[in-house]
């Protein structure tokens, strides 16, 4: 992909290119759902994605075409969402991984820090979304109790550390730290300087692995963001992450829905094709509804100006409502398959597991509601 001026992207052509990449490079590698992508194969495919410019190789000059490269551009957001959605249709774990590394690049650009390799941002602290404390911090209203809670929430010094879910060959992690000025700063930790425990066997996203990471002994350079800038960075990261999660999940449910439609058009039970049964139509309807509403929401989010706390609250509320629908749509697609849906080879059960993962990462529906309420406090 070559660089193009902002806001005049040939969107459809770029998405087609992503779809071609997904079909040619990714799909053959993940066609056997019961065999997770090997780390080596995954690295090769990721390299192809990097060559295409889907993720930028470094934090230098943006091409405007990589995922989440121009945070303020509606077109780049639309491009990123469309690309993640197309990748998610083929494999949610891979799409999620590219999204995470693009977030890390985004942060590196903001901090003007070039970290080598494939990195992730530990955006989520020890548990949930820190109740309302993180939201109040983002609004600049954090009290002493909130700050104490955030200190603990982002504590990566003591066991068990923070959880990250990423490809096994990650290079480093960006860890947040509540600095002396009571603002969140970022530290890049190369893997070898962290204390890392692999926590095998995650529920889904089989391509990835879960790790508990703790800061090592060594001193690491820390960002020196002014309080306002630090809040902006975190707000934008949370917003982009929310969009990314929904885009990948949307791709997943589209995949499940397409599989279910095909199956319902060939399987006969009850004296007819099962798609003729109202019961099956209702199951398929759940997927369709989840797709339509998520598509609408993502579309309108791209047009939204900036990432204020209030905008983040709207995203959180949407995600709180949509993520369970995306799970339900995938689960109902599985149900269309009857017993076959429960078997690993059909791929439906994997999509459902992946959707479940995306529902609980970076805030469950309940936590998102609480966080949104705190983001909206005093805003009327």
């Amino acid at each position, binding site marked *: 992909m070559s660089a193009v001026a902002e806001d005049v992207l040939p969107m459809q052509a770029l998405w087609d290119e992503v779809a071609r990449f997904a079909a040619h490079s990714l799909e053959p590698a993940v066609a056997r759902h019961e065999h997770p992508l090997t780390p080596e194969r995954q690295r090769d495919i990721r390299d192809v994605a990097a060559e295409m410019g889907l993720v930028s190789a470094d934090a230098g000059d943006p091409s405007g075409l990589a995922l989440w490269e121009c945070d303020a551009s509606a077109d780049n957001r639309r491009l990123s969402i469309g690309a993640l959605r197309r990748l998610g249709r083929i494999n949610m774990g891979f799409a999620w991984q590219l999204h995470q590394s693009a977030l890390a690049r985004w942060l590196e650009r903001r901090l003007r820090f070039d970290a080598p390799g494939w990195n992730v941002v530990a955006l989520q602290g020890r*548990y949930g979304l820190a109740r309302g404390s993180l939201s109040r911090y983002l609004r600049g209203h954090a009290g002493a109790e909130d700050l104490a809670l955030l200190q603990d929430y982002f504590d990566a010094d003591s066991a068990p550390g923070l959880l990250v879910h990423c490809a096994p060959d990650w290079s480093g992690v960006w860890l947040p730290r509540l600095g002396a000025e009571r603002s969140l700063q970022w530290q890049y930790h190369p893997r070898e300087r962290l204390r890392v425990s692999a926590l095998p066997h995650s529920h889904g996203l089989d391509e990835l692995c879960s790790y508990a990471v703790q800061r090592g002994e060594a001193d690491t350079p820390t960002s020196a963001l002014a309080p306002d800038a630090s809040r902006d960075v975190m707000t934008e990261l949370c917003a982009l992450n929310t969009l990314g999660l929904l885009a990948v999940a949307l791709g997943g449910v589209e995949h499940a829905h397409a599989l279910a439609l095909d199956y319902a058009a060939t399987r006969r039970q009850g*004296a007819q094709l099962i798609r003729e049964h109202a019961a099956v139509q209702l199951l398929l309807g759940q997927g369709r509804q989840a797709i339509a509403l998520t598509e609408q929401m993502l579309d309108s989010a791209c047009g939204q100006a900036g990432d204020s706390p209030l905008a983040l609250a709207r995203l959180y509320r949407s995600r709180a409502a949509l993520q369970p629908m995306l799970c339900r749509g995938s689960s109902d697609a599985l149900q269309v398959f*009857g*017993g076959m849906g*429960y*078997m690993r080879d059909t791929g439906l059960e994997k999509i459902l597991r992946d959707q479940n993962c995306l529902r609980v990462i970076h805030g469950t*529906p*309940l936590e998102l509601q609480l966080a949104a309420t705190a983001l909206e406090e005093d805003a009327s």
Partner: protein
Amino acid sequence: MTGYSRAAMPHLDGHLASVDPLSPAAAFTRLGPVSRRLATYDAVDQWEVETRRLPAPLQRLRRDARAFALRELRPLAQQTDLAAHAEPGQLSPALRDLIARAGRAGLLGDMLPMPLGSGRPARFRHPIVLQQCIRVEELARVCGGLMLLLSANALGAMPILLSGDPSAIRRFAMPLFRAQRRGEPRLFAFAITEPGAGSDAEEGHGARHYKPGVVARRDGDGWRLNGRKVFISGGDIADTLTVFAALEGEGMESWTCFIVRRGAPGFRAVRNELKMGMRASTASELEFDEVFVPDDHIIGGLRRGWALNRATLNLSRMPVGALAVGFAQGATDLAYDFACRMRLGGKPLIHFQEVQLQLAQMTAETSTARALIWQSADTWTPRQATASICKFQATDTAVRVAEMAMDLLGNHALLHANGAEKVFRDARLTQIFEGTNQINRLAVIEDFQDQLLARSTDGAAA
């Protein structure tokens, strides 16, 4: 003034310590003896409260089942879930041992009272289905896969018992029950599903139009079975299978229940499925290639298979509801443990109101489902609508509660070691097998059909 310091006493945020005079626990102690019979506080958990409501023999059954599950299933649960799927017919030494222990403990043959089976006679003042529900819930609470490994056995034996034929019970059920009691790892399995008939094997309207896939051809003083069954729980390791087949040239109304023994010439397990959950139990594809079954291995008589199948499902769908309650309880218990263990901002999560609300909801949903099952199962003749309601209502509850547990654990739910994700994977099956929940909903209406037709304006239009 009361000499009691509020701050010092242990309490959850937003609640008073139980010794506070305003807490019911303390306040009730000041009531007179008559009032205390109506308003009392007992510091036991919900499980204990509900157990104490049961008649003594069933209380004992529940306590024994829980003890067995904790002692024998828990140590195997996580590792078995992670182990590679077994090749057809392979049973790991640990699972073989588990089946033996369950048999010796009397868990496998307890559909009949001793000495016919292994159930304690005192229990049989209460319906068999209620006993099954109580037992299976406790096993499922600890591990779905191991529960299914042990409990698909009861499903397989059910057509024999339901046939009411003393000779069949004496020849096929009792010897196996005795062997199980001796610690031999021998099980029953139940085989109705075919590649072309899942729902069609569970509801008559579809069955009427289905061309049977497993067919029995007359051969001398017996029958030759040909065709395939799929998804049969424990079908590859079972000693004795109740296999349903149509008679050659006839439709599903000719369905007949045949006893097929492991090792019978022409019978083999072709493959085991790779499943989302319930991984300790196999789901096998079975091939019947000219398998000979003598006449005296027919259960309940020729063309009685459909009736036996439907009666078996009526008896087994309540226990399926019950095992789903076990999943909901397991998920709830894991969520409570996590909330008491995981700390944020210096205190365990259980102090946070949103966590308390979520846990209370999970407890309520689980108890409500259990109440439905216990009330419905307290009958010797389960009715189709009631059995199906138990099945779909409780299994939908189980999946919802498992999701709530995952939500409560947040991203920690993704870790296998925390247990909640396994409950979800196991529970998800219950919405599919024993008739999908869609088919079970339709079974409710089928059961009321005549009354509904009588009420409808064009009753004759059927």
